[in-house]
């Protein structure tokens, strides 16, 4: 797996726990959704952990755990399955402040979409990273100077810029 953050391939500080693995005492780790409730229950307030969820998850299923979570990874079963983008938006709306990660075969060209919807990092398989190097991800990040939507993260909004131009 390769991890992209701010247009760069970085070392992943997080470890994905296999379901049969015991919950560690230290380190940053990611549990699966079925184990979340248990993890919240048994782990102390200082534990640093996250969860990986399917893109069909109802945000309400995560609300109670949100303050405890440092990372939520949303699985993209296929790169063209856009449900994860809406789920990310909804989690940000629920004021999730931790790292939001998209995990799957996303292609570089989707980077601005992911950032716009509130993702911080993208996790892709190695074979994809081999074809789509850092340069392509960075280029995608900078492909557009602005966007037409308002209320999405990342690039500046054209509507806001126009409004400022009128007011100044």
């Amino acid at each position: 797996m390769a991890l992209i953050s701010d247009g760069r391939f970085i070392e992943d500080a997080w470890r994905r726990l296999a379901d049969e693995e015991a919950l560690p005492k230290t380190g940053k780790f990611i549990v699966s959704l079925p184990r979340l409730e248990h993890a919240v229950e048994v782990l102390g307030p200082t534990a640093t952990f996250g969860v990986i969820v399917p893109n069909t998850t109802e945000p309400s299923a995560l609300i109670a755990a949100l303050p405890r979570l440092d990372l939520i990874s949303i699985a993209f079963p296929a790169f063209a399955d856009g449900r994860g983008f809406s789920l990310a938006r909804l989690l940000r709306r629920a004021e999730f402040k931790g790292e939001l990660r998209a995990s799957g075969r996303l292609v570089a060209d989707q980077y601005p979409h992911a950032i716009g919807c509130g993702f911080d990092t993208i996790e892709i398989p190695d074979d994809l990273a081999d074809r789509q190097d850092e340069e392509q991800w960075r280029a995608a990040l900078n492909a557009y100077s602005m966007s037409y939507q308002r209320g999405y993260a990342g690039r500046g909004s054209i509507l806001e810029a126009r409004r400022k131009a009128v007011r100044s």
Partner: protein
Amino acid sequence: MTAVDLRVAQRPNAPMTTYRYDEYDAAFVSERVAEFREQVNRRLSGALTEEEFRPFRLMNGLYLQLHAYMLRVAIPYGTLTARQMRRLADIADKWDKGYGHFTTRQNLQYNWPKLVDTPDILESLADVEMHAIQTSGNCIRNVTADHFAGVAPDEIEDPRPTAEFLRQWSSLHSEFSFLPRKFKIAVTGAAHDRAAILVHDIGLRIVKNDTGEIGYQVVVGGGLGRSPFIGKVVGDFVPREDLLAFLEAILRVYNRFGRRDNKYKARVKILVHEKGIDEIRAAVEAEFAAMDRSAFAHDPEEFERIAAFFAPPPYESLPATSALLRAAKLETPAFANFVDVNVGAHKIPGYAIVTVSLKPIGGVPGDATSAQMRVLADASERFGFGELRVSHEQNIILPHVKQDDLFALWSMLDAAGLATANAGLVSDIISCPGLDYCSLATARSIPIAQAISKRFSDMSRQRRIGKLGVKISGCINACGHHHVGAIGILGLEKKGQESYQITLGGDPTFSASIGEILGPGVTAEQVPDVVEHLVDYYLAEREEGEAFIDTWRRIGHARFKDVLRREGEDGADI
């Protein structure tokens, strides 16, 4: 700029009545071209697989057809300037085979571009403020509108500012570019629906409430394709300031819950059908209530800024009727026929709306050669403030022509083979490309359109028949809108043979209905006969003032079915 463009740019009455890009729009579109150029390079280098490249090329209008790529250029809300029309002609000459095809969704398709040329084509389009963005793919498609926008006498408000507003909002949307399936929005602001809003994923109808406030009736879940549905009302009156938020709510519900397990069940119409409109309405309203609407807070200044581009052109004040026109009609019967059939009432006295038919008898519906495009551009400049429209019936509209100028315009069109007086008549056929171009086709459709058109080549007979929508699709995907044709024709394949299923009673307007099947399929050769028999039966049965669809509704489908059956018994071999 080429010499022609310079000449136009300097022309004092250069068109005023359409949106002009500002620095942000221009930057966005050229960034899109640059991005696509890289995407093509990365496809060629192998960085992108074909599967990965596909959605991105589709979102730039590039389809793979039977013989070659096809590039679909957006003509947002169907409005074009003369300069843009000339550019479309230049592109057809330089990168295609000298013609283009106007489609039912206010797009223009080039049938023979090369992949490596498309970035240059897109750049050439960007230069005249055009693009191919989101004319294909599982995203919000080119927003369409009433082609008589701004000039129709029955209009509450010009739908184009709304459509432009939505064009911008939907362009490269972060959240809604990987939907379950394509998503089409149409807008009308008139009492008559010329934009077929009830058969779109979202149809918007501009309405006024009791206090005179403007808002939108929002219809969701209409569509044609293999399972046709008429859209249902999801918001009866959505005030303008809530429009974007409301649409965002619908799209979010669709993006999350639309089916992705079967692409034939992925359109929002299926979601609405399976869940029921009440459940969908509740979900949309809940999402709307939960949203941070400040991000969508209506920006009246921005709306006004856009609306100002669609201000009326500098009309002259003229008498309501033209003596010149009356005299010319008396003198030249062919011209009189053209006026009676292709010329419509305009909201400004002394002006008229002219439909230029791209359906010459025996021609390919919607095709125009580069020479014809240039004639149309010239005609719009001489007689119509340099503005043109594209209709979903695949015709071209000159929206503001002085009645006094109609004869001169007609003469010019006639010389270019563009004066076919059949707008709305039986030979004004909507047809998809069918087996001649399309890899999904199960039968030919263009040759069927040509055969019907030739069968009714007697124009006086066509006028006697009156308004009649014939619509043909070459497969179940229904690109040719056959479901909403008063006579619909669907080309299928049965045991290796083309077989055409005929439906009657379809209607794309506010009184929308889906056509009903007439009987067993017929062969390609029989189609013109069947159409002719149906038309003859209608002529025999019709009452004063009835169009084909009215008679069909009054006397019922069964009687028309009998026609087919009787013909069969008579040995006509149907």
